[in-house]
């Protein structure tokens, strides 16, 4: 059977396209999507996978075909055809990738926009308005904080103004306090997260509850104010497709709407020292009722003043205690709490920057 080469090429092209399209949707590489923006990121990735699979198959197909088809006859000492180039062909393979990457840029920009990454005009206005509410919410925390701190006998001077002078934004020169998430929507729920070696500490400003794991109600616009006390950390929830560095001296933000009940890992994604791998906790997305119950429990235990759930510093554990960090709910004794206290007090104060 002798099939004309154009037909073979066409068939190969069709098969390549179909395989790419199929694999791009069926790669099973992504974890569960649990936030509102996650599906957007996922379909961006699917698109890139379609294109990527196509290019991969094209390049490797040509290589394999060449190895089979164009291998040299051992007795043939002559050269191949002296083809120096083909301008139209070169223009095609310059133009097509250029169009693809520009399209991907626009698509990515769009997704980034939907994530709320960029609102250059809107930013200042929306931001300032929002900051007032934020301040108001936080003032409660700021007032409450000395009480917590005092009860532990620790000096309650605010951290940011003393130890960590806050930075200004310098957008033109490229260093600002980074933010990710849609800041145009009204914030419905605020948590302050403080990263330290090697734990996250979450403060719920309305209720002064401090916890080592993050509980958020489902389907609410959540704002996490992130600060770091020692080195750079990063707040990452793979299921939310969101990550944000915690830079000492700057208050960074993550906003998200979690829309799927469940417990997800919350990971520090920036090398922060020897126990970096252990700096992880969980984020619990629950219904408003469950969340309220949990909050009440926390308030109650805080009043008892004893077994407050707080993140632990692995460095203070022995090796044996440390080896099963995953199975074990992070619980702390009063002694550990004592050691952690300076950091805890700091984190409570951290958000008072605006």
């Amino acid at each position, binding site marked *: 059977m002798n099939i004309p080469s154009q037909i073979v090429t066409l068939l190969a092209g069709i098969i390549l396209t179909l395989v790419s399209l199929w694999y791009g949707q069926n790669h099973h590489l992504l974890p569960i999507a649990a936030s509102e923006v996650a599906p957007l990121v996922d379909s961006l990735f699917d698109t890139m996978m379609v294109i990527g699979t196509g290019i991969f198959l094209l390049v490797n197909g040509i290589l394999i075909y060449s190895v089979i088809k164009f291998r040299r006859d051992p007795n043939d000492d002559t050269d191949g055809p002296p083809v120096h180039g083909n301008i139209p062909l070169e223009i095609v393979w310059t133009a097509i990738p250029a169009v693809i990457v520009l399209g991907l840029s626009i698509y990515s920009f769009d997704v980034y926009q939907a994530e709320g990454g960029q609102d250059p005009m809107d930013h200042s206005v929306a931001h300032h308005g929002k900051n007032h509410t934020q301040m108001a919410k936080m003032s409660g925390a700021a007032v409450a904080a000395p009480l917590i701190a005092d009860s532990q006998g620790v000096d309650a001077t605010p951290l940011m103004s003393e130890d960590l*002078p806050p930075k200004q934004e310098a957008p033109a*020169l490229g260093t600002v306090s980074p933010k990710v998430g849609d800041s145009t929507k009204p914030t419905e729920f605020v948590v302050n997260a403080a990263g330290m070696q090697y734990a996250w500490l979450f403060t719920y400003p309305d209720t002064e509850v401090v916890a080592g794991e993050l509980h958020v109600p489902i389907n609410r616009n959540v704002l996490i104010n992130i600060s770091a006390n020692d080195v750079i950390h990063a707040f990452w929830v793979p299921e939310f497709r969101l990550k944000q560095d915690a830079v000492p001296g700057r208050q960074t933000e993550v906003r998200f709407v979690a829309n799927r009940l469940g417990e997800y890992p919350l990971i520090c994604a920036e090398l922060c020292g020897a126990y970096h791998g252990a700096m992880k906790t969980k984020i619990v997305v629950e219904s408003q009722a469950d969340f309220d119950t949990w909050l009440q429990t926390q308030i109650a235990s805080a009043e008892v003043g004893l077994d407050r759930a707080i993140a632990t510093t692995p460095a203070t554990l022995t090796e044996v205690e440390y080896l099963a960090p995953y199975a074990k709910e992070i619980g702390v004794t009063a002694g550990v709490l004592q050691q952690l206290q300076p950091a805890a007090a700091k984190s409570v104060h951290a958000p008072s920057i605006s």
Partner: protein
Amino acid sequence: MTGSTLDSAKTSLNYHHSDEVQATAHAEHHDFRVLGIIVFLVAEGMIFLGLFMAYLTFRSVSPTWPPEGTPKLELLLPGINTVILISSSFVIHNADTAIKKNDTKGLRLWFGVTAAMGAIFLAGQLYEYFHLEFGLTTNLFASTFYVLTGFHGLHVLFGLMLILGVLWRSLKPNHYSSTAHFGVEAAEVYWHFVDVVWVILFLMLYIL
């Protein structure tokens, strides 16, 4: 490959080229060395550029600049220093003109004057260091001030060494001539570079 008419322009050009390559392929070839210095100065310039950008960023991310409690910088002494350094660039150029006329005495004179001016600059810089009210670790401004001026000062010192080295060598008869004076050119190019960097530095640290 063979033809009937001769293309004399092309052949003479070719001869010229091949002579040059023959000569230069062996070890010493001063033309390339000056080019090499210039290329190297691009790298030097990038260090300063990096430090300048860091300074500007520190400046713009700090709420107050210089940080509260930093005493104001005196302008008189650095101003005089700047004038001296800028003039020295013109002085050193005279030396270059002199050696191109085979005037070794002129070379020595102008290099001597440049060296003196460089030394005065360094002395002024040290005087300023000793009379400043802040130290290296006082605050971010102080640190950047000392590191930038200090790093530049090291370059001035190195340039001064180069100039003195050339002066020393020029004492040997016929060491430099109108055709062979790589050392002179290198010192001059380097000195101009140090000068330009200082002007930017001065504007950034004292004026801006």
